[in-house]
Structures are given as C-alpha cells and as structure tokens.
C-alpha cells in the first residue's frame, strides 16, 4: 500500500489516450483520468437531504417518457406552486433537480414540452460545445445563434451527452474554460456595470473565479431574447434581484400572463450564482467547486470530487477543511439557516396566494382598471422576488440574510398589492 502510494506520487496521471478539442465522449477522457471519471459517473446517485438532494421515485415508463425513475414532484409537495405559475409550463411539471447525469433526459422528457420550447434550452442540459462548434463551422457563437431558434426536438438531434469533460476543460491543458456564449456575454455585461470594460472571461478570470464561473454558465437566471431565442443572462444593471427586475421592467419583458389574474409576470430560475455572489462565502473567495467538488485524497493525490452533489452528503470534505466543527454541528448550522428561509418562503407564498385571490375577486367584481393594474404590478414584483429564493436551490444557504431580505420585500409587495384593491373603510383619511 505504501509502495503504491509512493508510486502514485510520481505519476500524477497516465496519458493513455490523446485528447483533442473534438473528443466528446467522457469515457475516452476517463481513460486518462479514471478517478474524475468515476466521480462524474456517480452523479446518478439520488439521496435526499432535508431540503436538497433528490429522491429516486419509480415510475412506469410509457411512450412519451421512457424514464423508470424520476425525482419527486415539487408541485405535488406544495400545490401553491401551481397557482403561482398558473398558465405557465412550470405549473404542468416541476420536479426537484437531481444529478448532472440526468440533465439531458430530464429536459427531454419533462411534460413542460406541452408548451413548445426552443433549441436554446439545450445550452444548459447537454454537451453543446461540439454541437456549437460544428454548427458554426468552428465558431461557437455562430453555432449558438443557429441552434437557439430551432424547435427543441430538432435541436435535440444535434447533441449526444449531458455535460461532459469538454464543456468545462481544455482538452490539452485540462484547464477550466468557459464554453457558453451566454455566460461570456452575461459576465461581460455584469463587469461593465461595475466599471470594467471589455471583460473577456477566458482571458481575464483568475483560476479561483473559474471554479465558480464554470458553474455559472448554467446555475443562473436567464431568458430567451426575441425571435432568435438568444439565451441571455439579464445582468447589465447588476445581478441582485432588484437589478434584474429593473432590467426586465425596462424592456417590458414578461415570461407569461398569469392565468388567474392577467398580470404580466416573470419566473426566476435557479439563480445560484447570483445569490452566492451576495453571500459571505463568495466575499471570502470560496467557490462553488470548493463545496460541491471538494478535493479528496486518492492515494497520494488530491483530486476534485467530480461527483457534484449536495455538500450535506459530504460535509467532511466540503466544509471541514475550513470549519473545524463536528459534522453534526455543521449540518445543524445549515438547517438553522434553511429553516428560517423556508419559514419566510412559506409566509411569502401565502401572501402571494392572498393577492392572487384578491385580484381574481376584484376583477370579478369589476374593480377599477387602475387599481387592478397597480395590484398586478405588485404581483409581478412579489412573484419574482419570491421565485428568486424559491428557485434558488440552496434554500437560502448561499446568502442567508440576502434571501431573507428578498422574501421580506416579497411579502411587502404582495400585501401592498392587496391594499391597492382594498380601500380604507372611511372616506376622509386622517393621518
């Protein structure tokens, strides 16, 4: 065993095959990097934590959907979500997310396709680097522009894998690199808003930043812009919730019209990067990979654990390198933060339901269009703020106080919306 250790120390890896910028199949990369490959393959595991991870639920495959195992339905867990998203694809099917291994099939078979979806969806659910490269004759931005507007089913033919090694790594140096045009553009806009012009992420980012940026290619709020369905990260005014809402307000974007109220509403989606940015860990230079892909010792080496998952399933490596507390105590710290977030999330959800009921009732009673418009605008705000935390997958951990702040604002918006429809009982108002 020691013999083996000494041996390993001399050979960081065996170059069994030559990898090129066109090697897509992770199994081939795995020949050179068996440990990383092994971890990568284990993202099929499904283990539930109190608020995260995922549960493996059996289902009977059918023609439309051959999956025999899915994650739990969030809509069934909390039916208020259906009403929150009434009229939008999310009210049809929305499940707890699970490991990277499933990203392509979960997207392919979600019932959300009952509403037609574009090829742009694939940016975050498949290994698109080579698809983009091919479609753009070597220019990934051109390829990106070509594939985005295609109908989903058609675009789906152009990809073969969920995210693979080549989406995060340069094949010859193994260095991290950004492969997604949407992030290159998004981060450039964000930096510009901070006074840094002409930011080129693959040129200017530090290694530690890259350990978060590779994740921020997908774990972010987004929308599809215009007829070209260009995938855009709405950060040109900043990446805090109020900056993003201001962006959407300015371009008068709506994701859909709410079925019960007619309000022009927005859905926030997995703003992990944005939320993490407001937290103490980001401020202290702790990257996504530090917690979700911590170094692990394998023989004499340290390798990044490519089994990307909830850190609560791996507290020892994910947290104890920095925090000298027992595992149980660290778990309790996380749960304390998450249960506060969950408490406020429920409060905000109730407030939003109340507002939706009030708008419905006011419309039925023929209330003035002014007051209804005011209430609808409050709904838009309350909904987006609430969704920003609800859709963020750490249940507040990535930025505990910021998550609570956003939910407090959401509650205020929803309740003010109700006020807009409920005049005071008297006529002359006194101060």
């Amino acid at each position, binding site marked *: 065993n*020691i013999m083996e250790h000494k041996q390993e120390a001399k050979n960081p890896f065996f170059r069994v095959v030559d990898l090129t910028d066109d090697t897509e199949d992770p199994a081939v990369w795995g020949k050179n990097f068996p440990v990383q490959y092994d971890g990568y393959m284990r993202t099929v595991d499904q283990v539930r934590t109190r608020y995260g991870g995922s549960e493996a639920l059996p289902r009977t495959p059918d023609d439309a959907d051959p999956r025999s195992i899915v994650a739990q339905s969030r809509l069934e867990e909390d039916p208020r979500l259906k009403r929150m998203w009434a009229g939008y694809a999310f009210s049809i099917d929305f499940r707890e997310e699970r490991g990277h291994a499933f990203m392509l099939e979960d997207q392919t078979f979600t019932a959300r396709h009952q509403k037609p979806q574009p090829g742009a969806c694939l940016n975050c659910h498949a290994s698109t680097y080579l698809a983009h490269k091919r479609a753009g004759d070597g220019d990934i931005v051109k390829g990106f522009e070509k594939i985005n507007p295609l109908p989903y089913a058609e675009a789906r033919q152009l990809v073969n894998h969920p995210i693979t090694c080549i989406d995060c790594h340069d094949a010859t140096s193994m260095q991290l690199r950004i492969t997604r045009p949407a992030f290159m553009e998004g981060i450039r806009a964000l930096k510009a808003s901070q006074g840094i012009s002409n930011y080129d992420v693959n040129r200017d980012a530090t290694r530690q930043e890259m350990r978060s940026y590779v994740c921020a290619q997908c774990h972010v709020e987004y929308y599809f812009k215009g007829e070209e369905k260009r995938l855009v990260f709405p950060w040109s005014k900043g990446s805090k919730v109020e900056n993003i809402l201001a962006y959407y307000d300015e371009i008068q974007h709506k994701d859909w019209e709410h079925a019960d109220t007619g309000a022009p509403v927005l859905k926030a989606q997995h703003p992990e990067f944005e939320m993490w940015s407001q937290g103490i860990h980001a401020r202290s230079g702790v990257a996504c990979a530090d917690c979700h892909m911590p170094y692990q010792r394998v023989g004499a080496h340290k390798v990044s654990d490519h089994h990307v998952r909830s850190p609560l399933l791996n507290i020892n490596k994910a947290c*104890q*390198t920095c925090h000298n507390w027992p595992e149980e105590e660290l778990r309790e710290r996380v749960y304390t933060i998450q249960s506060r977030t969950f408490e406020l999330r429920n409060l905000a959800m109730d407030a939003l339901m109340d507002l939706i009921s009030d708008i419905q009732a006011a419309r039925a009673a023929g209330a003035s269009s002014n007051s209804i418009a005011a209430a609808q605008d409050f709904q838009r705000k309350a909904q987006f703020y609430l969704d920003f935390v609800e859709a963020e997958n750490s249940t507040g951990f990535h930025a505990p106080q910021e998550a609570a702040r956003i939910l407090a604002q959401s509650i205020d918006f929803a309740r003010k919306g109700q006020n807009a429809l409920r005049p005071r009982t008297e006529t002359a108002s006194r101060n």
Partner: protein
Amino acid sequence: MGAVVKRSTIAGVVLGASMGLALGVGAYTFIYAKGASYFTDDPKACTNCHVMQEQYDGWIKSSHRSVATCNDCHTPAGFIGKYTTKAQNGFWHSFYFTVGNYPDPIQITKRNRRVTEDACRKCHADIVETIEGHDPEGNRTSCTRCHRNVGHLH
C-alpha cells in the same frame, strides 16, 4: 458465568490478533517510510508521511515557522511525556497511514489539542499570565479560538 468467560476469551483473541497485525504493519511502515526520523525534531520527519504535507505547508507559511517546530507544539514538555506521546501518536499514525482509513482533512484529537494548548503556555506564560491568573483549573482559555492560524496558515 461460563458464557461470560467464553465471550471475553474470544474478545481477547481478536484483540491480540489485531494488535499483532497492527504491530506488523507498524514495523513495515516504520522502516519503509523512514520512520526512524520520527524520533527527531526535524519537521520533515512528519512530512515523510505525505499525508502530513498539508500541515507542513501550512506551518511553513505560519508565523511560528522560525520559532517552533512540530514537536514544540505537538508533544508535551519533558522527555517522558514527549516520547510517550510520540509512541502513542506514532502507533496510530502508522496504523491509519497504512490502512488508509482516517478522516480527511485530518483533525486533531481532543487529547492532542490539549497538548498543543499546553505548548502555547510553555512559551507564552508571561504574556498570558494576566488573563490566565485567576482562572480555575479545567476551565481555561482556548488559545486557538482566536489564534487559529499561528501553527498552520491554510
């Protein structure tokens, strides 16, 4: 009665066997991994086990690099204390290193933290006298609560 005797006999046999095994691996480890250097004060002695590399690297960066070596902090004062601690630590070190089943990151044990906190006081008695003076036994200030980076800067 008989049952009790029997059970403890089995326990004894199992314990003896595993001790033997442990000593065996211990001896192998000791020679191959340059274990003899373990008895010196040379910090490199500790890093002969490459699993300790991280602590070595941290120590090199720490403020105590030029004033204290591993043994200044991780062994109690006095010859006997020093070498019993070393023997005890050395045994577990060899055992875990060879078997490969230890917490990673490594975490200091309660007993050894106490040894280390005593070590602070060996050198810094003067300065902490004021704050320690009125302190009842067994209820002392933990130095590393504030100075967690003095030995190792990670």
